[in-house]
């Protein structure tokens, strides 16, 4: 079973963000693999261990995203594809999906996996758009995945504690829900092995994808407060004391 996993590189969780127009200043902050995508990668590795085949890590972005592909290789992906695009943060969801679909179209694969959404743009559309562009069936927010005789039985999460089983043929595109599995760490052996693995580099231009953007992020900004927060100060003991006082006599909730 050959699986392509789309992994995005995003600013590190605790990175201090400074806004620049409709994106952020990328200098001085760290980047990491988008956490929801790490669950998709883990699921792909588990499927490979069970059914054989190959796992390909695909990422779109500037040179820095090679690091995230290397991390995927160190965890056990067989090879990587880097679609180089320094300006990828300006792509709209459909534009990004068209580039990824073109890269996927050059490969033979049974399954395409994505995370649920990215922690930066948070569009949450890539998997569904890929399915449309590649004309494949799809399902999203998957919490369990079993492959049997060329078909998949999937547990799809719905809201408020509900789930649904669905049956989906292969090939297909799935968006994986975070928490579906326990993500592995790269081992030293894995990191050494990754050095010998191939990362194919292609440019967005060479894929011949042209896409008129359908939407534009005009600007981003720190959201305006809807509530006035009263900040308590002092030593931890003083702050705790003040809070209990407020909860008891001001908010009257305890």
């Amino acid at each position: 079973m050959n699986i392509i996993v789309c992994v995005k590189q995003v600013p590190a969780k605790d990175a201090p963000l400074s806004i620049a127009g409709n994106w952020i200043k990328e200098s001085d902050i760290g980047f990491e693999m988008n956490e929801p995508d790490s669950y998709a990668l883990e699921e792909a590795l588990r499927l490979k261990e069970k059914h054989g085949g190959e796992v390909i890590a695909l990422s779109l972005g500037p040179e820095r995203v090679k690091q995230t592909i290397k991390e995927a290789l160190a965890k056990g992906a067989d090879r990587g594809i880097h679609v180089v695009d320094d300006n990828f943060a300006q792509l709209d969801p459909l534009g990004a999906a068209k580039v990824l679909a073109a890269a996927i179209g050059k490969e033979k694969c049974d399954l395409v996996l994505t995370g649920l959404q990215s922690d930066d743009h948070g569009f949450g559309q890539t998997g569904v758009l890929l399915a449309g562009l590649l004309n494949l069936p799809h399902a999203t927010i998957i919490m369990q995945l079993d492959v049997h005789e060329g078909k998949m039985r999937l547990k799809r999460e719905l809201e408020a504690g509900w789930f649904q089983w669905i049956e989906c043929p292969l090939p297909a595109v799935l968006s994986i829900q975070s928490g579906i599995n326990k993500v592995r760490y790269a081992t030293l052996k894995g990191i050494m092995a990754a050095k010998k693995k191939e990362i194919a580099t292609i440019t967005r231009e060479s894929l011949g994808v042209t896409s008129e953007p359908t939407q534009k992020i005009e600007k981003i900004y720190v959201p305006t407060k809807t509530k006035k927060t009263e900040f308590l100060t002092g030593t931890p003991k003083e702050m705790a004391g003040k809070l209990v006082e407020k909860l008891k006599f001001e908010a009257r909730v305890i």
Partner: protein
Amino acid sequence: MKILVITEQRQGKWNKTSFETLVAAQQIAEATSGTISAVVVGKGVSAFADELATKNVSEVLMVEHDLLENYTPDGYCTALKQIFESTKPDLVLFPHTYQVRDFAPKLAATLGKGMVGDCIGFRKEGDKLVFVRQMFQGKTAADVTFIGAAPWFASFQSGAFRADSLAAHLGGKAPVNTARVELKPEDIRTKPLELFKEAKSAVDLTQAPLIVAIGRGIKAPENIAQAEAVAKALGGEIAASRPICDEGWLPMERQIGSSGQTVAPKLYLALGISGAIQHVVGMKGSRTIVAVNKDQNAPIFEIADYGIVADIFEIMPALTDELQKAKG
């Protein structure tokens, strides 16, 4: 501007975000002198259509077919594409539900259009509509506009508009029209099977008046005892944001947020929770919100009544002490 609102029901029940999206549509219609068609999709949904007709909309469009009884992305995309081709809307609005996430972006793409998903508001600037959504896990907001010709597609986050401000129809009832769609079994590639809930949870957080919730700031499972001590001193329930339950540190039934429980307790004490939108939608209705976080820019402070910028590991034992004293 002709606005289509795609409402959502499943197994005889509304997804309530549908009504919030109708409120958004009413406000956009007012700002643009537009009209609203409320669309209901399924099989045997005339009761839903009749209910929609009592709201201030120009018409209700009922899209019924045997193959739409159970939701499938292929079925919905095929049917709704035909509806858009026949009704030619300018703007199509969806509630940002798990179901909508599953098909709407692809549906828009089949018409060569993009979708602005998970919006929390809109503004009209000149003759342009500006949609507001969140980025970087709620740390920033973004103003987004559409490029190119209509139709435009957008979805609104749960809680972005208040369903209780939905305006009723002025002259009694809006007309209910039936729209025919062509759908063949072979159009549908996935097969929906049974719906189910996981084993019933021992605790019903929705009924808990006092909740102490932990997030990534708790760092390790062995530290949860400190938060549980706060909860015990308070007489409240312990809960968590998604990553904590994903790690298996607390059971899934303790999870607050879009994929977990939605709660509105008297007191919500958020310890080491940054306030990503997926969490906030599950608790922003709480009467009093207290946030303790060492990052003063954490988005959770935007909705907090009381804030403490500090290390939770210094606050938790102190707070346990003070609560015990106060409750004496």
